[in-house]
């Protein structure tokens, strides 16, 4: 494996991390109510185990995994279940969620270990405990971690890749995780290497986080082979396939997984979470969220109970400024705008950004001038200009042979477009339409 430490194409958006990069993570006070959606992870939604009126303690399992690609959900605060029903979901729809009225005075009571001690467990038992603890990828996609830790037998895995890039502007959760809890991160690396049975771990961190690189390097234990590689600062360096190319020089073929080139990629926040659940014995009930943007008065990196409503989270950060104009869940490149402050933080929420009118930069859209900037930006080498014009004409059938499926909606094309065409939004809509057409075919039947 030869490290190139970079990938081709991509963009350089302003980083805008300065407001939170140096702020140590701190805990936010418990909100009066938490709302835990049953669908917080990729895969099947969890099945609720509680009903209105039940008393639950922090860490109690309140919803069970439905099958293998699914994880349970645990109460993030002690309290009483107020209702199980529809609630605004971070994706903009309404979905089933468990609402818990929090008892503030007992919310952090110590309790016996719920996750077993990892020493003495076999790799398979660790993986099972990881699922039972509700751990998912905390980089945003929320794919169940235990699935990634149990690759099929016929695939040879050579290395674990730890993703500490955090290439999205504004976000500093991974940065603070590495700087504040390097020992925890490296315990997580050790556990994951044990599960996967790999001899080596490659730790990719963008060069703009020197304190994180320093902290991880200083905490490196002598008995496991972890190589810390500082990477070129470029978006989307944290995308799985880009990271693998930068660290190993290997390209993941279209339609294939990192497994196919012999690596497993884990986000640094997921790695730290694995270590945390085994250290504390408490399942995944909280995560670090960056609250930033010029529209928020006191930006912060907060440890937030999963299910905290945006309203309570923003109140804990001093509230909104007068010129706040848009709230985004996730980073500015791939995040989703939110419309309801009642929406909860889920396991996959990396940050909450409050943008002012000036930051949001809403520009008028002009017709495509075929300049080709989007082709030079696309990290997976698609032709966004052609795909975009096809999508606007609803010619979805012609988009699939042009590898629309490889598009990960990173937003580079939208970012560079001088006509301000919202290409990645168009592709998101096209992907949904194609999925819908596939599930409803054949739609027309003789009357």
């Amino acid at each position, binding site marked *: 494996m030869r490290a190139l430490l970079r990938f081709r194409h991509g963009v350089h958006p302003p980083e805008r991390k300065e407001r939170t990069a140096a702020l140590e993570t701190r805990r936010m006070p418990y909100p009066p109510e938490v709302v835990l959606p049953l669908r917080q992870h990729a895969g099947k939604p969890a099945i609720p185990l509680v009903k209105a009126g039940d008393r639950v303690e922090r860490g109690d399992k309140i919803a069970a995994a439905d099958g293998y690609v699914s994880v349970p959900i645990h109460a993030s605060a002690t309290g009483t279940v107020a209702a199980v029903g*529809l609630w*605004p979901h971070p994706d*903009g*729809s*309404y979905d089933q969620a468990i609402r818990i009225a929090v008892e503030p005075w007992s919310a952090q009571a110590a309790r016996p270990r719920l996750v077993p001690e990892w020493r003495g467990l076999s790799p398979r038992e660790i993986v099972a405990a990881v699922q039972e603890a509700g751990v998912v990828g905390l980089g945003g996609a929320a794919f169940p971690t235990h699935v990634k830790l149990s690759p099929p037998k016929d695939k040879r895995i050579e290395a674990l890749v730890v993703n500490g890039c955090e290439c999205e502007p504004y976000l500093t959760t991974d940065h603070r995780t590495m700087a504040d809890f390097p020992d925890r991160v490296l315990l997580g690396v050790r556990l994951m290497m044990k599960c996967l049975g790999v001899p080596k771990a490659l730790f990719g961190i963008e060069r703009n986080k020197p304190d994180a690189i320093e902290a991880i390097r200083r905490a490196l234990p002598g008995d496991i082979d972890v190589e810390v590689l500082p990477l070129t600062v470029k978006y989307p360096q944290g995308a799985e396939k880009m990271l693998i190319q930068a660290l190993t020089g290997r390209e993941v073929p279209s339609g294939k997984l990192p497994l196919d080139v012999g690596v497993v990629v884990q986000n640094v926040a997921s790695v730290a979470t694995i270590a945390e659940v085994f250290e504390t014995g408490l399942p995944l009930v909280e995560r670090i969220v960056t609250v930033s943007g010029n529209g928020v008065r006191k930006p912060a990196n907060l440890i937030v109970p999963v299910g905290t409503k945006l309203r309570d989270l923003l109140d804990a950060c001093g509230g909104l400024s007068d010129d706040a104009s848009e709230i985004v869940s996730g980073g500015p490149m791939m995040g*989703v*705008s*939110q*419309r*309801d402050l009642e929406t909860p933080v889920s396991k996959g929420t990396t940050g909450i950004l409050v943008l002012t009118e000036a930051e949001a930069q*809403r520009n008028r*859209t002009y017709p495509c001038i075929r300049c080709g900037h989007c082709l030079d930006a696309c990290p997976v080498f698609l032709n966004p200009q052609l795909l975009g014009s096809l999508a606007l004409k*609803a010619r979805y059938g012609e988009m699939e042979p042009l590898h629309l499926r490889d598009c990960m909606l990173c937003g580079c094309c939208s970012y560079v477009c001088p006509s301000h065409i*919202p290409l990645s*939004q*168009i592709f*998101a*809509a*096209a992907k*949904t*339409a194609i999925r*819908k*057409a596939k599930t*409803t075919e054949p*739609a*027309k*039947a*003789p*009357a």
Partner: protein
Amino acid sequence: MDLGALLLSALTLGTLGLFFGGLIALSHKRLHVWEDPRIDGTVNLLPGTNCGGCGFPGCRAFAEALVGGKAQPAGCTNMGKEQVLAVAGYLGVEAGEARKRVARLLCAGGTHVAIQQARYRGLATCAAAKAVASGGKGCSWGCLGLADCERACSFGAIRMNRFGLPVVEPDKCTACNDCVEACPQDLFTLMPIDWKLIVQCKSALEGEPAEALCKFACTACGKCVLDAAPELIAIRGGLAVVDYGRIGTAAPGATARCPTGAIAWVEGRQVLDREPVAGSVVA
């Protein structure tokens, strides 16, 4: 210039031309496929819009079905009575009886009754807005009002009203299904025009939360269930659901006590710009 070479090439090419010409003429006779000339004749009488409302993939396929006796002229949803009779006369078959179907919108939540939680200022199509927090409309099931259906309709049957809701003109609607496919919220459904009892809401919320987002939302109060014929309406998933298998028993009285007006008795065109009833309350 050598005259011989000139002659030779003309002769060679001429012979080749004759040979292949003969081959084509021969194969034209030998491999001829006979097609009923009435198919072409019928295609000329059909509207030629290829809308698919008849259930066949285009007008030619419908013409083949007509000639083959697998369809009746009235199956075309896009022809007037005279045209239907003309086709029937040409083919010497019965015109048949068509059940007029139209696209119905399962939402009455225009901008005057449904709250908007955020302003959507991106690309002005429903599909794109759906990808961003459901376009900012409070009700995540409702009409996004950006006219994807109006653009999809080839017959000019859909027009957005002043409250941002698409109104379907039953006379122009051919039930071609294009709007059904275009709507990212799945709000259109094709139904016979004589099914008059329609629940114009898809919100799965019940009671006050539903009405807080839209004054015309179905709150699942169940009054229509009591007022309608037995088993005609049931409450399922936060909505009143009409069992169209029993539509024969439906009467306008079922809508009388609806506190929000979500369930409507629709004669012809859907009225999507009415004002909310004053003092409407949720029981």
